[in-house]
């Protein structure tokens, strides 16, 4: 009997901890997205050159891979997450300015933003509602992501617009898988650090938004 009480108590403690990670992740994620929007608007107002995107993405990725894991368990980790997301948002400035200058640019940006929101919220709700364990996707998603990076590398030399479109479409599918995988990891206690969980989900949102911009931009030019 006592053992039963102990098991129930352990389960409820674990559920509370999971809910706390989930709540903190979504809170930090929403704040970093707002901050990114602010830095992107700032970058647009400053009329930054296209190279800003490249510098911000490389800088953001280097900090996310080498600096953030060392500080993920300390309050400094939150500041580093804001630094990374602020940099990535700032890098978006010239990209958004370029799309805004297109005849249908405002529509493309609005649809990409709305589409990214719908995809993220839909998949998060699906993972939370079904409570399914998507850990089996890890290897598949990682291999898919590496193949996409190789294809993107090849396309820098080949410069094929159809391949660029295909890469963007595959990135959206892989990032969708990562949303399910990351959310499921939080739900099942695989990820207990909300700083790392936030940066993972932020990267998927960022990649989906950029890929949607590219797809809608290319398709609107084909008219």
């Amino acid at each position, binding site marked *: 009997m006592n053992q039963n009480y102990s098991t129930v108590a352990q389960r409820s403690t674990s559920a509370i901890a999971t809910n706390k990670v989930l709540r903190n992740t979504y809170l930090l994620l929403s704040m970093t997205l707002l901050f990114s929007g602010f830095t992107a608007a700032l970058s647009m107002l400053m009329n930054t050159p296209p190279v800003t995107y490249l510098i911000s993405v490389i800088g953001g990725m280097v900090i996310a891979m080498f600096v953030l894991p060392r500080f993920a368990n300390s309050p400094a980790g939150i500041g580093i997450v804001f630094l990374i997301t602020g940099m990535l948002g700032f890098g978006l400035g010239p990209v958004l300015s370029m799309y805004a200058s297109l005849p*249908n640019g405002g529509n493309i940006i609005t649809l990409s933003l709305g589409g990214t929101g719908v995809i993220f919220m839909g998949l998060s709700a699906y993972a939370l509602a079904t409570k*399914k364990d998507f850990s089996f996707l890890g290897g*598949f998603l990682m291999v898919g992501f*590496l193949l996409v990076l190789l294809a993107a590398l090849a396309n820098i030399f080949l410069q094929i617009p159809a391949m660029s479109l295909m890469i963007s479409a595959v990135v959206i599918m892989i990032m969708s898988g990562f949303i399910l995988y990351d959310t499921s990891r939080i739900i099942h206690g695989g990820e207990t650090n909300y700083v790392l969980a936030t940066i993972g989900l932020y990267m998927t949102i960022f990649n989906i938004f950029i890929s949607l911009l590219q797809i809608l931009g290319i398709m609107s030019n084909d008219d």
Partner: protein
Amino acid sequence: MDWMEIISALALIAFIIFLFPAAREMIKNNPQGTSSDWMSFVIPVIAIALFVTFLVMLV
């Protein structure tokens, strides 16, 4: 080929090299999914593909 493309290519190569060991480890320790597990992934992905097609039609 301009210098921005060369830097992009070098950054991608570095990223692939950095990710490769983690990817190999993930594949090695990856739990196997059943066909029902895979269906629960494929269905939302198809829904997203249809949604993106719908967005393309709107633009």
